[in-house]
């Protein structure tokens, strides 16, 4: 009896554990598959319910409606622009700062490090920040997506930690060859930091792509500055209050196809459009992100 039980136990455990893990994977993936199915299903058919894994009345009208009005198209462009510009600028400045603070003999190293690191622990809050943006004429200005978040103390620390692991001799020999600090940074440090820069770039890019709150706060009155996430947010709140005007307006110029497009189906299509870039870069993301998390963990 006892022997029997101890032989059976691993099988029972591994079977149950395996099933649980598969269940977790299904719970994680199902919503995406379902959203994809709804986004390709005719809106007036989706209302009848019963769409799970596959569209019943196949259509691409939802996607046509999403891109027809021009609103979503422009929002897509703004999202791409802020992601690219914001990532490149932020990465360059953050790593430049990280380089200077990795120089052990730099006399301002201590005070500047304190000034930067302290920003991780406090924030002035929503209202004072809002007034600052207003005073700097950043309200309803594309630059509000780029400028306020340029330097993150956390990213700076991650890059600095990496630079400090590089052999000191490389920098010394560059100095002997007559390169100034800026030259050294551009031609020695940046190329050597590629792995950590890739990690941090992905951190920043995902943050940029996913953010909507700055649009909501600082640029909501300017339609041509709207982002994909913000359009999705507007749709979400309008369909939750079962007021479909925004979504229907998008599909309005599709004439006959109009009733094939409902707020629910439009929302599904935009969700897919907004999630797609993330899903596409996900294989890279997961490689570098996990790496980056460990890099960050090493310091603290």
């Amino acid at each position, binding site marked *: 009896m006892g022997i029997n039980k101890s032989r059976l136990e691993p099988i029972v455990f591994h079977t149950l554990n395996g099933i649980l893990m598969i269940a977790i994977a299904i719970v994680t993936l199902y919503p995406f598959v379902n959203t994809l199915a709804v986004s390709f299903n005719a809106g007036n058919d989706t209302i009848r319910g019963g769409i799970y894994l596959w569209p019943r009345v196949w259509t691409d009208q939802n996607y046509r409606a999403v891109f027809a009005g021009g609103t979503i198209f422009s929002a897509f462009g703004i999202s791409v622009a802020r992601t690219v510009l914001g990532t490149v600028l932020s990465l360059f400045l953050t790593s430049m700062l990280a380089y200077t603070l990795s120089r052990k003999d730099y006399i301002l190293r201590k005070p500047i490090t304190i000034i930067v690191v302290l920003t991780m622990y406090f924030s002035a809050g929503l209202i004072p920040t809002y007034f600052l943006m207003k005073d700097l004429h950043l309200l309803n200005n594309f630059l509000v997506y780029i400028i306020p978040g340029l330097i993150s103390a956390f990213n700076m620390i991650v890059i600095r930690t990496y630079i400090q692991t590089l052999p000191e001799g490389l920098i010394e020999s560059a100095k002997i060859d007559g390169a100034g600090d800026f030259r050294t*940074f551009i031609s020695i440090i940046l190329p050597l930091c590629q792995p950590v820069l890739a990690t941090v770039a992905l951190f920043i890019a995902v943050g940029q792509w996913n953010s909507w709150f700055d649009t909501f706060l600082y640029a909501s009155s300017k339609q041509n500055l709207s982002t994909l996430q913000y359009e999705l947010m507007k749709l979400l709140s309008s369909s939750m209050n079962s007021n479909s005007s925004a979504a229907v307006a998008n599909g309005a110029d599709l004439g006959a196809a109009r009733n094939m497009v409902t707020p629910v189906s439009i929302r599904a299509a935009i969700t897919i459009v907004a999630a797609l870039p993330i899903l596409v870069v996900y294989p890279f993301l997961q490689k570098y992100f996990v790496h980056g998390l460990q890099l960050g963990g090493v310091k603290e």
Partner: protein
Amino acid sequence: MANTPGAIPEQTTHTAVVKTPMLKRLRGQRQLMFMSLPIVAYILVFSYYPIWGWVMAFQNYSPAKSFTQQEWVGLKHFKFLLTDDAFLNVLRNTIAMSVINMVLGFATAIIFAILLNEIKHKFYKRTIQTISYLPHFLSWIIVTGIVASSLSVDGGIVNVVLMKLNIIQEPIMWLSVPEYFWGIVGASHVWKEVGWNAIIYLAAITSIDPSLYEAAEIDGANRYKKMLYVTLPGIKSIVIILLIMNMGWILEAGFEVQYLLGNGVVVDWSQTIDIFVLKYGLQIGNYSLATAAGIFKTVVSITLIFAANSISKRLGEDRLI
């Protein structure tokens, strides 16, 4: 650029005897300063200067008046907040959702990490893990959209499954029952972050000395005893560090989920301090009160972070700051 480095050493060596080493160092670090000081100026403007705005909390601030014309009211807004039912209500919601998110987040991530670690098949394990942290990279907009459609009364998967299993007879309007709101927010966090949060524990588990398991096995420990007496103690210190660190963010229950999932019916359970600040500040225009609420949050957070830091120091764990 190529010529100047050659020219400068000549000058400096000539005067080096007169100049203090300090000045010489300063000279050699001109480029470092050019590279860092503009960024420092930027940080001072964007992160430090706005703190000046805190004076609004001690005034009856009106944007139309100049600084000297503002009416000073001392701690009036703070006193009002701490006796105001609406604020105490959002404070309660904030703390409750923070605690729920924290407890659920820790428990699920640790359990998931331990169970995933039991999977011996490498490829299978990697696949599950890769899938599990996919939602982490999606925005809260997308996640709340998914949550809302999963919970919907017409065809939402949660209601469908529960009805198929005969657990409920009628679809439940999950998002319209105030008492469910905290739980839904907690579950949404778990769905989005469990895989991501587990990464750090999985790393900690793999660094546990395998001989400890072998010793336990010789002592007759079964699988569950090994989890309890080897694995858990092995990740104890990282759990404690993270727990303490998270205590500092107890007033950071978030804004996005509550704002996006909340609606008129559940408002007494859904609003957090951040939403309060947004409502009073930018929608009602009571800048002073909103700033006071923001200060309250920041001051409590900083106090907790430093307290957490000193607790972890006393416990002999790594310092956090």
